[in-house]
């Protein structure tokens, strides 16, 4: 392997966040193995050992706490619950298939009886499996995030460009930024049920309630970062723009946006993180069938498996949050040229 290809592979890996591969590639490329081994130890060895220690402590301490639902589940119990959730997912899929089969038979019988009857296809009515709930949560958070971005970026640009507009918006931003999703939710619920009245709704109300709550909470990091990014644009660039007598649109598209992009992305990353965090709380109360509702329902179940399942959800939420952040980081790396990340 030549040094150049090694560097290229390395760049790609760094971009998607797999930095601990770097020493391995360097070693393959024939660089000083001793130095690289130390690097590898630092990037991979120490985290693995730390995690193992965490697991050990967890399983020891979990034994000590006796709740009214039994002992706090240790790592093994949680793993077992994860497996049983996966098994349950497969069972649900089988039930779903059986449902469709029954439906097909019933429709066939209907058609045989009277060829002119209108047969309808219905989606499965059973409970959502754990995997379905994860998908619902992801859909909800992206919906909320998308709406937030559509509002936050333009407003942020205006704030950054015009000090007057900025001072007009500032009090609003400062007041609404720290509000908890749990405070927004009742208001959002009432507004949505008053305004969103259709006979054939595209979205469930509970979905909209959760998504809009996510929007209201995840709006702010993007907005603030965008305005800061736009405001801190290089004075020289602005002066060049003046000399060239660029019109407003060109100025925004060619100068302002590209130079503010790194900070906008930082804002988006923070927003998505906040959105994912508040989503769980919103789902619990809005009854949107995602991970939040899963946690709440399990808490209500109060069975001997409930705590284990909730722990599985905790890890799922954490890992997905981490992956979302990585995705945003990678996108940022691909789309911006700055070293400010």
């Amino acid at each position: 392997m030549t040094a150049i290809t090694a560097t290229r592979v390395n760049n790609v890996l760094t971009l998607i966040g797999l930095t601990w591969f770097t020493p391995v590639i360097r070693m393959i490329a024939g660089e000083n193995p001793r130095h690289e081994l130390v690097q590898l130890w630092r990037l991979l060895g120490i985290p693995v050992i730390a995690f193992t220690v965490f697991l050990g402590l967890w399983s020891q301490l979990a034994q000590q706490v006796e709740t009214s639902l039994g002992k706090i589940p240790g790592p093994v119990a949680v793993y077992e619950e994860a497996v049983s959730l996966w098994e349950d997912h497969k069972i649900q899929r089988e039930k779903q298939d059986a449902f469709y089969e029954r439906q097909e038979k019933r429709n066939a019988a209907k058609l045989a009886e009277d060829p002119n009857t209108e047969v309808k296809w219905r989606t499965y009515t059973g409970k959502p499996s754990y995997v379905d709930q994860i998908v619902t949560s992801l859909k909800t958070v992206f919906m909320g995030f998308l709406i937030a971005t559509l509002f936050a970026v333009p407003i942020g640009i205006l704030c950054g460009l015009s000090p007057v507009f900025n001072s007009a918006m500032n009090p609003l931003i400062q007041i609404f930024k720290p509000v908890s999703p749990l405070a927004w939710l009742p208001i959002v619920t009432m507004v949505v049920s008053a305004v969103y009245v259709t006979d054939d709704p595209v979205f469930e109300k509970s979905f909209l309630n959760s998504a809009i709550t996510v929007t209201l909470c995840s709006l702010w990091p993007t907005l603030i970062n965008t305005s800061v990014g736009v405001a801190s644009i290089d004075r020289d660039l602005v002066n060049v723009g003046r000399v060239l007598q660029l019109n407003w649109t060109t100025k925004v598209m060619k100068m302002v946006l590209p130079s503010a992009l790194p900070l906008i992305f930082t804002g988006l990353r923070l927003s998505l993180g906040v959105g994912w965090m508040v989503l769980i709380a919103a789902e619990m109360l809005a009854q949107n069938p995602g991970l939040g509702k899963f946690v709440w329902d399990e808490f209500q179940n109060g069975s001997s498996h409930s705590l284990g399942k909730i722990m599985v959800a905790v890890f799922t939420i954490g890992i997905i949050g981490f992956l979302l952040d990585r995705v945003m980081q990678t996108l940022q790396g691909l789309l911006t040229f700055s070293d400010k990340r």
Partner: protein
Amino acid sequence: MTRTNDNKRYILKILAAAAVALGTGALTGGPAQAAKLTPEKEELKFGFIKLTDMAPLAIAYEKGYFEDEGLFVTLEPQANWKVLLDRVIDGQLDGAHMLAGQPLGATIGFGTQAHVITPFSMDLNGNGITVSNEVWAKMKKHIPHKDGKPVHPIKADYLKPVVAEYKAAGKPFKMGMVFPVSTHNYELRYWLAAGGIHPGYYSKTDISGQIKADALLSVTPPPQMPATMEAGTIFGYCVGEPWNQQAVFKGIGVPVVTDYEIWKDNPEKVFGITKAFSEKYPNTTLALTKALIRAAMWLDANGDANRKEAVKILAKSEYVGADYEVIANSMTGTFEYEKGDKRPLPDFNVFFRYFATYPYLSDAVWYLTQMRRWGQIPEGKPDTWYHAIAKKVYRPDIYLKAAKMLVDEGKAAKADFPWDTDGYRAPQTEFIDGVAFDGRKPNEYLEKFPIGLKQNQVVVGAEVQG
């Protein structure tokens, strides 16, 4: 213009006549082959709270009774009774497992105002009152024993000294119930008041329900009851199963009395839908009532032979989700009071026998009398008012129509339904304090209680006037 209008009216008349003919045909025997229902709305979402008495819904789904009627139902657990009711009213849910007081409360405008009706009563009994270990230890000293075991039913008279002790120490005696218009609230109040403990009044301006109270009652969602008591926020609660048995299993409290002992065979949950829904989708309403009746029949069939299977279904995480043993304890004919003190209670959960699913108007009147007794209905009302509201909310007409169809289809026996009742049960006497209830005379009934509002009494500030 006039002519088309006349024509329209004429056609409507014919249609109406035909409908009447069909209707009476269906009720008076009619053709043996009942016409198949075509539900107007086939995809439905029903809500429930994680309690064992949601069983008819789970069974109607799992046994395919909904699908038999051409209904495609999704069942969804709800966070609490308030969320559930609001979601039925604003149409996010098509119907739900409700507290008997919810349709009545909503219709008379206590809490959220909306016209909610019920064509199906879901079960009898099924609740218990549990106190914390500490309170039980203090109470037990006063309870008479026989063969080393407390004599049942345990009256609140024995709790009275404990409440007095707390009061003297300056600690408010707090208890939990699940909703202001819940059966549990009225049962707990009934039990406390029968033992001379004042559970407090509601008034027009103060809806905390703690005016003049010896015991302060507040709302906690059923599944959180054991945890709230364990945390020391409340000293006891009244709730449905499995949350009393849960307390025994976790060793955090002792159930002292069941509602079966407070009022034998009392009506518990109902299936609630909005009036608008029943008018817009009459066939769907009939179809879902049919499916629920069949589920209730299955639950009580062959001397409760199916209960074990039912418990297995309920223990799934999407329904009640508690452990099998906990649910089985009360669903299979026994009830564990103090740990190890397991007694037979075959009628603790009744789903079908004793005409349990028929929505009796007198049941509605009883709940209305209790709302009046504690001031949720702030002013006195004439007897006619009670009967009118009961008729508005409880709909035995829909129930009997659905039952008739099932009999015609050969899925139910004629003897299973009370065809000739006028909706009022014969006067009932089996209450813990022995006070008789005649649904036809609500005001006379209210006169009989030493604690409670009567006639035109009104609570103003912290005083009862009139």
